[in-house]
């Protein structure tokens, strides 16, 4: 199957952002992180699409929305290889890759059940110690949340 045919599975948008190469299991997480579940414009998505590079992938297309890099970088925690394509007039205006940020705020729960952020209403904050094999140090309890015990808020 060539790329053109595959693209047609999720129809094109005129203006907006395409988020491609999302791991198949992470599409709904990305939708939630970017609050697209409550977004008032057209949002198209597909998951378990065949991908030459990744086996199966997901894709999200958001009409009339252009994100700030820091908004998109938080999805790197679940979609580290996602590419961001800005579409203007049905054409690719810009293509970038997400990057794991230096700090993470509010998206991830601290894995430590005895952490104050799991007891009171507090926005979590982490320093990213390692980007490849993700390790997040909690700003409050100073414990380290790793990929295996990462839970999203």
């Amino acid at each position, binding site marked *: 199957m060539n790329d053109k045919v595959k693209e047609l599975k999720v129809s094109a948008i005129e203006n907006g952002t395409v988020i491609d190469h999302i791991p198949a299991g992470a599409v709904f997480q990305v939708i939630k992180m970017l609050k697209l579940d409550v977004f008032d414009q057209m949002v198209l998505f597909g998951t378990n699409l065949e991908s030459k590079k990744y086996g199966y992938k997901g894709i999200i297309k958001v009409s009339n929305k252009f994100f700030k890099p820091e908004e998109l970088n938080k999805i790197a925690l679940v979609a580290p290889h996602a590419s961001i394509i800005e579409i203007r007039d049905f054409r690719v205006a810009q293509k970038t890759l997400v990057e794991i940020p230096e700090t993470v705020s509010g998206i991830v729960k601290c894995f430590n059940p005895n952490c*104050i952020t799991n007891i009171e209403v507090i926005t979590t904050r982490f320093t990213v110690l390692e980007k490849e094999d993700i390790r997040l140090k909690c700003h409050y309890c100073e414990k380290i949340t790793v990929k295996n015990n990462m839970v999203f808020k």
Partner: protein
Amino acid sequence: MKNKSLVSINDFTKEEQLRVLEAAREFEANPVQTILKDHVIASLFFEPSTRTRLSFESAISRLGGKIVGFSEASNTSVKKGESLRDTILTIANYSDLIVMRNPIEGSARFASEISPVPIINAGDGSNQHPTQTLLDLYSILQTQDTLDNLHVAFVGDLKYGRTVHSLVIALCNYNTTFHLVSPVELKLPSSVKMHIKEKNLAYHQYTSMEEVIPNTDILYMTRIQKERFSDPLEFERIKNSYNLHKDMLVDTKENFKILHPMPRVNEIHINVDEDPRAYYFQQALNGVYVRQALLSILLGYR
């Protein structure tokens, strides 16, 4: 440093830590100075810790300050479900500084972010207890006359001992050589060793303490708790090998001193107590001077 909070030892730079130790020397020489006579200090102990609380309250009293607060959470609004946020904001109205001990990790950091008055963390669960680290540094400085280039041995539970972790990290500023003595199950975690490696300092690991005694300046003893072992037989097998007796102190350096964060169980035999190399009771007293120094600095009097 006025109005700064102390949550984690790393909140203070090396210079700021040394400033506290210098001021502590002044209070050791002259402990009763009523510089806080117009101040109210809140002492909030959400879990009991008599030793730490009395040390703080003694420091406050010797400075002439008034104390408000509680020694356990059972009779307070906290028990009725009040949030820490509300407790801190309310008590900050009644006091110039809050000393807090709380079993919830990160509670002190959170309190310091919402409180209009400085917070001193007197222990937040397994996380931080920075005044213990300052008094340990002070005890080392007082016995060795320097903090630089020392050989420091840590003995016992190096895995779960928060006191050990903070002191190791603090000593990484002073070109320390570390001697780490523990059962295999209770070795210093790699997250702490990382700090030693970052500074390219030397560390050696042992499972018995005999061979480190002649080579160290400071022997920092800690308690090994039975519940840390998955196999109780393993605890029975090793428990006595980390106990210090007087007859083990044969070939020590002249400046050699024994420290312990207290309370001890049987890891230091009472026959060591009268030895001039035993420093752990003085170490506890040093806690009062260091806390006097810290309170004075954070309230702008030093």
